[in-house]
């Protein structure tokens, strides 16, 4: 290639932190990190975004928890996890000692829970950022999902910002299941978000026509995979058009370097890989390589140079 003697800069930046690769794992799609580390070195990743962790242990939902759909899948895990204390005691040290950069995804049922998760993370050394998953039901407001309510979204982010201190980058993960994602993005940016993660799953459902009931025990589930990529591209494009300076961690159906580049050209600065890990445990390594090759073929000297280029024409 023409670029063979020219250094290619694959980095991305959220808040004050640089990440050496633009390919991350998506929250809830990489286990504890340990499982994937048997297939490749976690250092390959820009960062591991952990499964969303709660204050207390959670059993998650009953099974069946998944259903395959055309070019996608539904999941209803229900945020199963050990709670923040055990997580900080076990998962985080393991990840750090294995050279993974770590972005901790947090989820709460009240503003206070987000605040207390942020406080717990404040002192933790070695982590590179927080992803705030606000696609959770707000028990204080009739179970309405935070991410669907601009006021609640803003309050969560303000409270995380206040409690985590000024250093750790805060990336807020939005739901596409809203009438106006740009206005929600605006609220959380005003509240102090350093970046946005787009998109979480779409609410969906599948019915077993033999058992004549929803396939998932939890009835509805989150739709992910290539099926939703056009929605992700649209959301990223709209939000990037409105807020050019806020870095976006793009995700939703990315399964190849071409897909990743599509989201980057729409406005994402880095990409999280979710569902693709399930079908191909080494997909992140492949996608990273494919992406860098595509960027070089197109004479980009960095990932950053390609961010949002689809807006220019």
């Amino acid at each position, binding site marked *: 290639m023409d670029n063979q003697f020219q250094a290619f800069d694959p980095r991305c930046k959220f808040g004050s932190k640089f990440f050496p690769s633009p390919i991350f794992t998506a929250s809830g799609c990489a286990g504890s990190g340990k499982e994937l580390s048997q297939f490749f070195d976690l250092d390959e990743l820009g960062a591991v975004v952990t499964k969303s962790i709660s204050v207390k242990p959670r059993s998650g939902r009953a099974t069946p928890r998944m259903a395959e759909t055309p070019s996608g899948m539904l999941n209803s895990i229900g945020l*199963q996890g050990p709670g923040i204390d055990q997580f900080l005691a076990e998962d985080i040290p393991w990840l750090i000692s294995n050279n993974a950069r770590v972005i901790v995804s947090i989820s709460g049922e009240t503003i206070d829970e987000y605040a207390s998760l942020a406080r717990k993370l404040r002192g933790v050394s070695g982590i590179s950022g927080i992803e705030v998953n606000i696609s959770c039901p707000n028990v204080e407001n009739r179970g309405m999902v935070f991410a669907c309510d601009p006021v609640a979204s803003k309050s969560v982010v303000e409270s995380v910002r206040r409690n985590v201190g000024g250093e750790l980058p805060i990336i807020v993960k939005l739901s596409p299941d809203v009438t106006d994602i740009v206005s929600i993005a605006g609220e959380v940016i005003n509240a102090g978000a350093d970046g946005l993660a787009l998109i979480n799953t779409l609410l969906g459902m599948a019915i077993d026509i033999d058992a004549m009931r929803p396939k998932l025990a939890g009835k509805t589930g989150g739709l992910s995979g290539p099926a939703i990529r056009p929605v992700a591209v649209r959301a990223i494009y709209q939000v990037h058009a409105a807020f050019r300076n806020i870095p976006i961690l793009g995700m939703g159906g990315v399964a190849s370097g071409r897909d990743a580049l599509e989201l980057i050209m729409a406005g994402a600065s880095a990409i999280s890989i979710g569902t693709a890990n399930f079908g191909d445990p080494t997909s992140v390594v492949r996608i990273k390589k494919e992406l860098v090759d595509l960027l070089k073929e197109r004479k980009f000297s960095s990932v950053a140079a390609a961010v949002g280029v689809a807006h220019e024409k």
Partner: protein
Amino acid sequence: MSLINKRAEQRNAEIISNKKVGAYHHMVFAAGDMAAYCRPGNFVAISVGGTGSSMILRRAFAIYRASDRGQYGGTIELVVAPHGQGSRWLTSLEIHDVVNIVGPLGTSFGIPTEPAAALLVGGGYGSAPLFGLAEVLKERGCRVDMVLGASSAGKIYAPLEGKRSVNSLTITTEDGGAGIKGRVTQVLPGLIDKHGSEIIYSCGPMGMLAAINEISSSLGLLHQCAVEEAMACGIGICMTCVIPVKDSSGVIKMTRSCIDGPVMDGAKVIWDSSRKVPQGTWGFNG
């Protein structure tokens, strides 16, 4: 934190044979080194549908047999029921077609340290991993009896060569088309009694495993079962495949059947938990 099977790797494997046997397809794959590390109870996860498929998840299949050297190098054999779109695609493949395979995955059947009388119970294609298990048990000097059940004769998978390593084979079919008319659980107490079985190994539909577990626990027998819960990844990263299982301190936890299973201690599993989380499960507040 559990680890996936230490020997798991991802590779392309050529199909060497694909034969229809009753309701199933017996398929052989050239799987190289992977074959050497397969233990009875382990499974593999295979991509289905080919490039451009709308099926994005792998399908899990119990390993029927694995042999680490032969004309084609290491081979892995599966027994596949053409059920839905993914398995029908797989069984429609031809010799020389290549599939992408991850394995060996999951836990394997525990083998008694001392010779013991074992009763192996399989439902439908659940017989697949039991033949390899029978061989190992036999080598260890165990008595091995087997019961296979299915709805009809075509769904009993019991090849000749497999039968060699069992001391007795009982067959039940719900329609009475072969063997005894009825379900495996009807003949189980009698067989346990007759053969002096000390440990039960099982593989089949969850309802069958639950019914077997009732018998084994009422008789105080060990019960190692290979469960089957819908799996999106097979390698422990998605949390879809969980079932409630008591850990060593008696706490019920939603446990990944792809990593801490598929073979589990039947006595530790909370049965009949489909579509509900058992009361008292760690972290359950519903």
